[in-house]
C-alpha cells in the first residue's frame, strides 16, 4: 500500500490535478483515436499485401495431373448418390459411401457417436461418420491430412451440398493411384453438421475417455484407425459441380483462425486454376456496386469481425483449430450469374478438382506444421491483411482510459470520500491529514463481498440451466434458459436497491469495475479480437461517462438509459431484432417483436449448448464476465443517487 498511499500522489499532485481536470477530454480523445485507428486500417496504407511465408508449400510447383476422368467419375457418383438419396430421406447412405471408399482401395472405417442432449431428460441421438484412410507410401503413418465433406440429408434445412461427397470420392480415387504422398490422407464424410465433426475430432484426440462418466454430453467413443498427428485439414462444401465462385471460410471456434499461409495457399492455387475465389465472396452482380476501395475494405473487415465475434465456426473446419490443426472450408456456389450459359458438364468441376489436388500436394510438401506467418489477423481484401501488431493498438487505445480513470479515482478517493462522509465545515483541513487512515479504513470487506456475490450470479447463469433439477421441469430448453437468465438479470437489477454499500464503497467498486473491465477487454481482445473490440466500442462511452461524483441530472439519466440498453440480454435482443428485421422485411413491427424475443431465447440456448458440446466460450464470457460487470455499473449508476440522497437528508437534518 506504500506506493499507492504515497502522499505525493494525493490531490496536491500536479499530474493528478491536471488529469482530473481533463480526464473526460482525454478519455474521449483516446476513444476517438482507437476508433479512428481502426477505421484507418481499411486504408491500403495501413494494411499489408499477403505473401507466403512457408517455403515448403511452394504452391503451383507441380502441374496438376488430375484429368477429365475424375470429373466424369464425380458426375457418375453424383448420379448414383442422388438415386441413393431418394431412398434415404433423413439418413446418410453410409453403406454406399463405405462401399465406394472400399472400391477405391482405401482403408475404410466407421465411427459411431452418441449425443446425450443436455435438456429434455437425457434424450439420445446417434450418429455415424465414415472415413477412408489412404496410407501414404512415403511414411509410416506418423502424419496425416484430413479432407472432409459434410453430408446433409435431403430433409435438412440448409443448402444442399450433396456434390461434395462425389467430389471427395473422385479426388480420393485419383490420389489412391499416386505414389508421392508423404502424409496419410483421411477422407472423412461427417453427418449432422458440426456435431459429427466434433465427435470425430474428440474421438481422434481423446479416444480413451471413459464414456459412462455422466457429465459428458457427447460420447465420441474411439476410432478404429488413425493416421498419426494431423497437420492440416480441408473441408469441402460444394453446391454444384458447375461452380460459379468459391467462398473461403476461415472463422473457427472462439474466433480462432487458420494460419494465414493456408488461406494464401488456397487463394494462390484457386487463382492459378482460374477459379473465382475469395474471402466472403459474393455473386458478381452484387459486387458490381459503386463502392470506393476504402468502403469495400471496411465492409470486408466488419463482415469478418462480425462473423468472428460470436465464436461460432462458420464451417466444419472451425473445430479443428482447437487441436492446433489448421483448417478451412472452401464453399463452391452454384452458378447463378450467367445461369443460361451452360458450361460443358463433363468438365465443369475440373478446375476445382485441380485446385484441390494442388492444395493437397502443397500440404503434402509441408515438412513442419504451419508455424510461420500469422495466426491472428484480419482480412481486408482477398490479398490484403492486418496483422495483430496493427490492430491491437486500436483496442488498447479504446481500453487505456479505464486504467487512467482507475488511477485517478484511486488518487482522489480521499477527497470524495471525505466530502461525502464528514461535515463540509471540517472537511477542508483534515482531509489531507487523514488521507492515509482514510484509505485503510475504506470498506474493502463489504465491497469484496458484493463483488463475490455479483460474480456468483454470473456463475449461476453458467451452471443453473444444466442442473438436473431444472431439466426435470416440464419446460423446453429455450424458455428454461431464458427464464433463468432473466431471473438472474432481475436479481442484478434489484440488487443495488436492496443492498446499500457503506460510504466509500461505491468509489472502491468503481475502481474495481474499471480494472476488471480493462483487463477483461484486453484479454478477450487478444483471444478473439472482434468480440473484445465490439464490446469495447459500445461499452466504453458508458465507462467514460460513469461518474460517482454528483453531476447534472440529464447526464445521469442518460447514463442510466445507456446502462439499461447495455444489459447483455437487451443487447442480444437488439441484435436478434435487427437481424430478423433484415431477414423478414415483410413482417410488421408488432409481429417482429415477439418473434425476435423467441429467437433471442433460442440464441441463448444454442450458445449454452455450444459451450457444453463444442467448448465455445461466448456464453461463459457473457455470463461470467459481462453480466457481473453490467450489475456493477448498474450499481454505480443507481446506487450513487441513494448515497447522495442520504447525505442530502443528513445535511437537511443538520
Amino acid at each position, binding site marked *: 500500500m506504500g506506493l499507492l498511499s504515497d502522499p505525493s500522489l494525493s490531490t496536491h499532485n500536479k499530474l493528478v490535478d491536471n488529469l482530473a481536470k481533463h480526464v473526460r477530454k482525454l478519455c474521449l480523445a483516446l476513444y476517438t483515436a482507437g476508433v479512428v485507428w481502426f477505421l484507418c486500417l481499411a486504408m491500403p496504407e495501413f494494411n499489408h499485401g499477403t505473401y507466403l511465408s512457408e517455403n515448403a508449400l511452394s504452391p503451383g510447383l507441380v502441374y496438376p495431373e488430375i484429368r477429365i476422368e475424375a470429373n466424369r467419375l464425380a458426375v457418375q457418383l453424383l448420379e448414383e448418390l442422388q438415386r441413393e438419396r431418394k431412398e434415404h430421406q433423413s439418413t446418410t447412405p453410409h453403406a454406399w459411401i463405405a462401399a465406394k471408399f*472400399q472400391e477405391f*482401395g482405401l*482403408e475404410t472405417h466407421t465411427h*459411431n457417436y452418441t449425443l446425450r442432449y443436455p435438456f429434455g431428460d437425457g434424450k439420445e441421438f446417434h450418429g455415424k461418420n465414415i472415413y477412408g484412410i489412404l*496410407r501414404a*507410401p*512415403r*511414411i*509410416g*503413418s*506418423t*502424419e496425416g491430412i484430413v479432407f472432409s465433406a459434410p453430408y446433409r440429408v435431403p430433409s435438412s434445412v440448409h443448402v444442399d451440398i450433396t456434390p461434395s461427397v462425389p467430389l471427395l470420392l473422385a479426388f480420393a480415387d485419383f490420389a*489412391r*493411384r*499416386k*505414389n508421392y504422398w508423404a502424409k496419410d490422407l483421411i477422407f472423412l464424410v461427417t453427418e449432422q453438421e458440426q456435431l459429427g465433426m466434433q465427435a470425430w475430432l474428440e474421438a481422434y*484426440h*481423446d*479416444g*480413451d475417455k*471413459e*464414456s*459412462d*462418466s455422466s457429465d459428458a454430453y457427447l460420447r465420441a*467413443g*474411439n476410432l478404429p*484407425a*488413425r493416421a*498419426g*498427428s494431423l497437420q492440416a485439414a480441408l473441408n469441402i462444401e460444394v453446391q454444384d459441380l458447375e461452380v460459379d465462385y468459391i467462398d473461403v471460410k476461415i472463422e473457427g471456434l472462439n474466433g480462432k483462425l487458420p494460419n494465414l499461409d493456408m488461406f494464401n495457399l488456397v487463394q494462390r492455387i484457386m487463382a492459378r486454376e482460374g477459379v473465382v475465389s475469395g474471402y466472403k465472396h459474393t455473386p458478381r452482380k452484387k459486387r458490381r456496386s459503386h463502392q470506393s476501395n476504402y468502403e469495400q475494405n471496411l465492409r470486408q473487415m466488419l463482415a469478418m469481425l462480425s462473423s468472428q465475434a460470436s465464436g461460432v465456426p462458420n464451417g466444419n473446419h472451425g473445430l479443428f483449430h*482447437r*487441436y*492446433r490443426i489448421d483448417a478451412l472450408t472452401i464453399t463452391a456456389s452454384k452458378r447463378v450469374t450467367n445461369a443460361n450459359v451452360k458450361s460443358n458438364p463433363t468438365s465443369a468441376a475440373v478446375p476445382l478438382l485441380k485446385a484441390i489436388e494442388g492444395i493437397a500436394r502443397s500440404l503434402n510438401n509441408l*515438412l*513442419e*506444421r504451419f*508455424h*510461420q506467418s500469422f495466426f491472428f489477423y484480419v482480412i481486408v481484401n482477398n490479398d490484403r491483411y492486418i496483422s495483430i501488431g496493427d490492430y491491437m493498438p486500436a483496442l488498447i487505445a479504446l481500453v487505456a482510459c479505464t486504467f487512467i480513470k482507475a488511477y485517478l479515482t484511486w488518487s482522489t478517493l480521499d477527497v470524495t470520500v471525505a466530502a461525502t462522509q464528514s461535515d463540509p465545515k471540517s472537511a477542508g483541513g483534515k482531509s489531507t491529514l487523514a488521507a492515509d487512515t482514510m484509505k485503510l479504513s475504506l470498506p474493502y470487506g463489504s465491497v469484496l463481498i458484493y463483488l463475490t456475490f455479483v460474480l456468483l450470479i454470473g456463475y449461476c447463469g453458467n451452471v443453473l440451466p444444466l442442473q438436473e433439477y431444472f431439466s426435470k421441469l416440464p419446460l423446453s430448453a429455450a424458455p428454461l434458459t431464458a427464464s433463468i437468465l432473466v431471473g438472474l438479470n432481475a436479481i442484478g437489477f434489484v440488487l443495488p436497491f436492496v443492498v446499500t454499500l457503506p460510504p466509500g464503497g461505491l468509489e472502491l467498486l468503481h475502481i474495481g469495475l474499471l480494472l476488471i473491465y480493462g483487463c477483461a477487454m484486453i484479454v478477450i481482445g487478444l483471444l478473439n479480437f472482434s468480440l473484445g473490440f465490439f464490446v469495447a466500442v459500445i461499452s466504453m462511452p458508458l465507462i467514460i461517462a460513469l461518474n460517482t461524483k454528483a453531476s447534472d441530472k440529464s447526464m445521469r439519466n442518460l447514463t442510466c438509459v445507456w446502462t439499461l440498453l447495455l444489459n447483455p440480454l437487451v443487447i442480444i435482443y437488439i441484435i436478434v431484432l435487427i437481424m430478423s428485421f433484415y431477414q423478414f422485411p415483410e413482417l410488421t413491427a408488432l409481429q417482429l417483436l415477439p418473434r425476435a424475443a423467441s429467437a433471442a431465447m433460442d440464441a441463448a440456448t444454442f450458445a449454452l449448448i455450444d459451450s457444453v458440446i463444442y467448448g465455445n466460450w461466448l456464453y461463459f464470457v457473457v455470463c461470467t464476465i459481462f453480466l457481473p460487470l453490467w450489475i456493477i455499473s448498474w450499481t454505480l449508476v443507481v446506487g450513487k443517487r441513494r448515497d447522495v440522497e442520504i447525505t442530502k437528508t443528513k445535511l437537511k437534518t443538520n
Partner: protein
Amino acid sequence: MLSALSTFLPPLLLLLLWTPLTPTAHGHQPDEQFHEELVVRPLAGDHVNTYFQFTTRWHYGDRNNLFHTQLTPRVIAEILQTYDVKELHISLTQGLWRYESWGYPIVDATGGAELWAWFSASNLTNDAVNKQWMQLANVFSGVLCSSLNFVDNTNSIAPRHIFRPQFMHHAGENGKQFVRYATLPREIVCTENLTPWKKLLPCGSASGLATLLNSGFVHNTKYHSLGVKVRTLCDHDDDNNCIVELTQTANLVYDLKLLEQSNTDFSLRRLFGMGLNGYCELATSSRIYAQRSEQGERFQLVPPPAFNVSSIRGGHRVSYGVYDIQQQFEAAAPDATRLFNIAWIGEKSAGGGRRLAVSALNLPPLYAHRYLLGNGQKRGRIATEIRNTHYEDLPVVLLELVPWYVHAYLHTLRIRNKAQQRREYATDVNDELPFKLLHYAPGKQRELPTHLEIGFVLPAKSSAMITIEVDYLLLKWLEYPPDANHGHYIGAAVISTQLPMGRNYSALPPEAHLFKDSFNASRPSYTLTLRTEALIVSLPTPDFSMPYNVICLACTVVALAFGPIHSVATKLMIVERQTTMPRNLLRKLIHKLKSRWGSKKEEATSVQETATDEKQQQQHEEKEAEQQESVICNEQKQANM
C-alpha cells in the same frame, strides 16, 4: 506360458550346428556357402510382397581364419575380431507393415533404423558393452551410410524379456550375455543405403537376384526394409569350431495400383523394371519361391514353376512354386541373352468381391496399433491397442522405449480390456488386466530413455488398451532439430507373443538360416514379434524466428566489420596531403567561395564558444595527432616487413 519364450530356444540351437557343414558339389570352398532366395507373396488389396534373402554361412573354425575372408564381407569378420558381439540385427525401413491386411512379414522391422545386438565374452562388463555398442553402431553407420552413429546411451536400452539370443557360444566362455537395443525412427531410407547394402553381397549387384534391386523401383514401394543379421554359432566344447552367419534381407511390398496399369497382373519385369539376367556364380543355390496358396491362388504363373512345394506348419498349409534359377539358365542355350521373367496372370473370372471376402476373413491372430492422445504441447497419453482375434489366450510382452524428452509416469499405466464384440473398454479398475511381469527403468533427462516392459495374458477374442501418461519437456534451444516444428519422434513399441498355430506365420525358425528351412517346420509354438507405428509429438517449441534474426544480424555485422578490419590489417597506409581543388573551373570558383564563407562563419562562431569547447577541441586535436602517429607506426611496420 511366458517361460516358454525362454526355454525352448537353446536345445533347438544345439541341433543345427552340424547340419549345414556337409560339403557341396560346387567348386568353391566347401565350408563357406552363399544362398540367394526370393519369395513372392501376393497380398490382399492388390499388394505384392517380395522378400529377398541372401545368406552367407561360413564355418571359419579357428578365430585366426577370420583374417582371410572370401564370400563373407571383410567388415563382418573384422567386427567379430574387434568386438565381443555375437549377434547383430540392423534394419533400415521405410513405411509401415500393415498386419491387418498383409498378415505377418517374414522378417519384422520398425520404420526408420533399428539396431540390436548381443554381446558375450568372459570378463565383459556393462561399461565395456556400452562402449562397444556405440563403436559398433558407428561402424555400421559407415558401412550402411545411415545415421546409426546417433545411437548412444541416451537412446539405447537393455531389454530384459522381449529378445532372446539366437547365437551359441561355447561353454568355456561362460560369460554373461548383454543385449542392447536402439531405434532411430526419424531415419529416412534411400538409395544411399541400398547401394552399400548391395556391396556386402559376394556378387554385388552385378549378377544374381540382387540385380533386381534397382533403387528406382525399390523405393517406389509402399514398404521397403533392408536388413542385416549376423550371428555366430560356436561348438559347445570347442572354441575353434565356429560358424558365422550373415543374412541380408530386403523386404518389399508393392502396391499394384501405384504401377499405373489397368489390371492387377504383374511380373518380375513390372516390379523391378527388368528381368533376371542370371544367377550369382558364387551362390550354392539361387531360387525363387512364388506363393500359390491364399492370395496366390488367383494367379497363374508363366512360365510354370519347376516344381511345387507344399508345407504344413502349425496346421496351416502353404504351397509354393519353386524356380531354380541355376537350372533354368543352365537348361537354356548358353548364349541366350534373354532375361528371365515370371508373370503372375490373374484369372479373369474371379471377381473382386471374392478377394475382399478372403481378406476380411484372414485377420491375423494378433495385431496392434499405437497412437498419441490428448492435445496441447504440455502432456498427452501414449495408447497401445493390442487385439487378439484368436480363440485362445495369448501371452504378450510389450516393450516401450520412451525417449528422455518425454516423461512417462508409471503410476498412470493401465491395461484396459474389452471383449471383441464390445464397443468400449471397461472402466472399472478391477477389470484391468493384471501384469505378469513388469520392468520399468525410469528415464533421466538427457541421459537415459524410459524403458518399460510389460507382460500379461491377453484373453481370447479381446483387445487390450495400454495407456501411459506423459509430459513433454521444454528443450534447450540448441537441442531442437533444424525443423523444430516437425515434432519429435517416439519409436515404435515392440510386441512379442507365442502363437500356438502357424496361420499367417512365415518367419524362419530360430535355428534355420534359409527360407526353405521354414517348410514343414512345425513347433509347439511360434515366436511372433510385431512393431507398432512410431509417433510424432510436438514438444513445446519456441518461435525460432527471433534467434534466426539474431544470427542473421550478427553475421551481417561480422561481415561488415570484416572488410575494414581486413583492409586495415593487410594494406599499406600512406597519408597523402589531399589537394582539395576541383579540376572544373566553375566548381573551383564555388569551392573557393564556399571555403571563404565557411571560414568566416567558423570565426564568428568560435568567438561564442566557451572554454569547455576549447578543451574538447584540444582533446580532439590530440587524438588526431595520436592517430597520425599510429598511422606512421603502421607505415613503419609495413616498411619493416
